[in-house]
């Protein structure tokens, strides 16, 4: 019998069956991938496996024993959730070893020095850039994500490690590092469960895969017996081409946004121009300051010096309201922190940004709101059982789509997309590329920040690279090879202008 065995699990939420008769077997010493589109039920299944969410029916056996009879079996499972779940005002070391009794600090008194020492080992091993005594709120997002993974590994008793989209905020280098650790653990005989929407990752690390669709298992495969198109077909029930590009086919128009010598926290002396009808990519390592720069441009964080010209007029610095009024929208990479309005409905979440269309007279028209929200939900294929469902109950990917749809419905002139496809499934990624392309072709200027170079090369006409808070180069996508870009990203090489 398999080390972890799931039979006939069912879980229903109001209006949706999230898991429907799911069977699963996971062996030690393997990396088992859960694949499926947004809302397929991957995270729900994982929550069931960790014992934190009771299921409606079905059994979970670990090591041959029934978890319904012995809850302590769940101690064998270590789990890294999809969303960041850290304690921002506490130290790195404490975040790492929480809860202490599971990580070998179970005594009555905590030894600070021992904790610092052991924390340093984990920080080195996972290559996390932080000191043990630093507050987690002050370290970079990527480091927080790695820290969260390291935390799971501090659980002394774990035999199964479940990683729910662990790579969303990591760069290639960090992912490689993570995979090295995963392989180590696998070879030590642990069972690993891995979820990602990035196909190359799945194929690189996976041993076996279970595909979920609409809460049901549609197949189990050994990884080397399945091809990428096959897997995608299992997930989506259709064909998706991965080599297609989405570069806007119209000529770029006049400059719409000009940034001159902008400096602020995390970026210095940034100058660039965005033209109508183009997709301008921003590449860089995580922590390069792309988000900071764009939050500065948008006004969410006030820049210290510099000038921004929008549609020929100088933009007030440090005022998101002025930017939005001028037609600039920013979609944050951190949707939980900066995106959703959790206890409001899907309708209200989308409706909030189209109020100038639904309430031109100052009074919201319910029918107009319903028609706009309805078309957003259809256009972006947002899976929700009801428009009135609180958005916090949607799957992560569907939340992301709702936020994107909401921004598009506002018909912006400039759209700043920070990691637009983070956590989005393959089919919907393509949908988002298509949307960006058609918006650009309608004359919208789009800035796209992405840590996936491949993605930038499929969409962006020009790519600006950033390194350590400064712009390190500007390249024409068609004429530049990957090596040139990478060296600009990692900061070796002079400032280049290739355009």
């Amino acid at each position, binding site marked *: 019998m398999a080390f972890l065995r799931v039979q006939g699990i069912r879980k229903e939420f109001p209006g949706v069956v999230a898991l429907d008769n799911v069977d699963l077997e996971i062996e030690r010493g393997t990396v088992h991938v859960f694949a499926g589109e947004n809302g397929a039920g991957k995270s729900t299944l994982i929550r069931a496996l960790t014992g934190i969410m009771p299921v409606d029916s079905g059994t979970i056996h670990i090591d041959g024993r029934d978890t319904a009879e012995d809850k302590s079996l769940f101690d064998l499972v270590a789990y890294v959730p999809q969303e960041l779940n850290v304690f921002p005002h506490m130290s790195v070391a404490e975040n790492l070893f929480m809860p202490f009794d599971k990580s070998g600090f179970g005594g009555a008194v905590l030894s600070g020095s021992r904790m610092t020492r052991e924390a340093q080992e984990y920080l080195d091993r996972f290559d996390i850039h932080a000191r043990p005594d630093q507050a987690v709120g002050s370290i970079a997002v990527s480091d927080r994500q790695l820290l969260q993974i390291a935390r799971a590994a501090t659980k002394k008793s774990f035999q199964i490690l479940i990683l729910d989209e662990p790579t969303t905020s990591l760069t290639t280098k960090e992912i490689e590092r993570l995979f090295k650790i995963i392989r180590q653990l696998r070879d030590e005989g642990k069972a690993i469960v891995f979820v990602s929407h990035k196909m190359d990752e799945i194929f690189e690390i996976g041993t076996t895969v279970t595909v979920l669709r609409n809460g049901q298992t549609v197949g189990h495969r050994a990884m080397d017996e399945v091809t990428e198109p096959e897997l995608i077909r299992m997930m989506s029930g259709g064909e998706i081409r991965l080599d297609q590009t989405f570069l806007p086919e119209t000529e770029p128009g006049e400059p719409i946004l000009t940034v001159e010598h902008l400096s602020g926290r995390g970026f210095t002396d940034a100058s660039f121009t965005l033209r109508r009808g183009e997709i301008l990519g921003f590449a860089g390592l995580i922590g390069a300051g792309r988000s900071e720069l764009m939050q500065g441009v948008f006004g969410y964080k006030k820049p210290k010096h510099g000038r921004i010209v929008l549609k020929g007029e100088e933009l007030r610095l440090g005022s998101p309201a002025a930017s939005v009024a001028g037609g600039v929208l920013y979609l944050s990479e951190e949707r939980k922190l900066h995106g959703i309005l959790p206890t*409001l409905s899907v309708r209200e979440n989308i409706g909030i940004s189209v109020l100038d269309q639904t309430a031109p007279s100052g009074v919201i028209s319910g029918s107009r709101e319903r028609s706009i929200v309805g078309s957003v939900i259809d256009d972006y294929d947002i899976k929700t059982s009801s428009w009135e469902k609180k958005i916090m109950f949607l799957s992560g990917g569907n939340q992301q789509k709702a936020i994107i749809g909401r921004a598009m419905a506002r018909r912006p002139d400039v759209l700043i997309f920070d990691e637009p496809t983070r956590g989005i499934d393959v089919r919907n990624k393509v949908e988002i590329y298509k949307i960006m392309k058609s918006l650009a072709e309608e004359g919208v200027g789009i800035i796209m920040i992405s840590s996936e170079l491949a993605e930038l090369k499929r969409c962006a006409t020009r790519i600006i690279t950033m390194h350590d808070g400064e712009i390190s180069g500007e390249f024409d996508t068609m004429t530049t090879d990957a090596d040139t870009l990478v060296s600009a990203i990692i900061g070796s090489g002079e400032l280049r202008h290739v355009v």
Partner: protein
Amino acid sequence: MSSEVAAETASPAKRTLASRIAAVPLLGVFTALVVIFVVSCMLSPHFLTPYNMTIISRTLAFVGLVTLGQSMLMILGELDLSLGAIAGLCGVVGGIMMVQMGWNPWLSFALCLALGTFCGMFNGFLVVALRLHSLVLTIGMAGVYGGANLVATKGVAITGIPDAIRVLGNSKLYGVPVPFVILVVALIVITFMAVKTPFGRYLYAIGNNPPAARMLGIRVDTIRVLVFAAAGFLSALAGMLMVARLGTAQPSIGEGWVLAPIAASVIGGVATTGGVGSPIGAILGAAIIGIIENIIVLFGVSPYWQSMVSGAIVVLAISFDSISRRYLRREG
């Protein structure tokens, strides 16, 4: 709102009754109010008399106006513990203007509303400028405004409020006390604002997630200051109406309007964490508290037991609300 829900879902037939009920957020508190009303009618023959209804509605009017302000602040994720002190300060300043300075009563009335608005706005400004959570700031400001009241009056009530103003507090319109009419008008305006205008949506958005609201281009700080100002205005209005009712400007006006509006709001479904609930629910909550206080006296509960009984009923009311909501959700 519930009809909208029904219209949108694919197959309304599938939804159970319980889940429909759960979808109407005010139903729980409304049911509780009806039950308490009916029980009160049965408990005391004096309850459902015109005179008693008058005193209940008038009492509700004063605390209700403050509750409206406090509930809007709570939806925004803030709290103002100085609203009672603002009401008291505006009341006595009004008295000083009308009586001691001999100013025109209506001018004085308007100036006091402006003063209340200013006090609220000042709280809001400090919250925004200093990025403080409002709870503690307004504990301090309650001391400041209450202290100003004491300095202005030396604790002595100001008597001789002109009749022109007194009419506001004591007359009736079609048998309904004027302060209650004012409350109903304010409630309608604010509910409309909350449900049907962008400003109302922004309130909920900010209460849900302030950084996200800022990213949406909402002027978060401006709206915060405005709502604090509105709450100050409503409190000043309550204070002035109380002066009109009493015919004297009592320095103690507003002392009982600090915790009751918060309790009323929570009973009515407004979360202290922001983003949830409605002003109308808060008023229903205030009505529940008001009826309970009334029936306790009518029923002749020993004064020594009163505070215990009304405390226990507040606890029961919020427990009932919390339990029923969870039960219905599970069903749905």
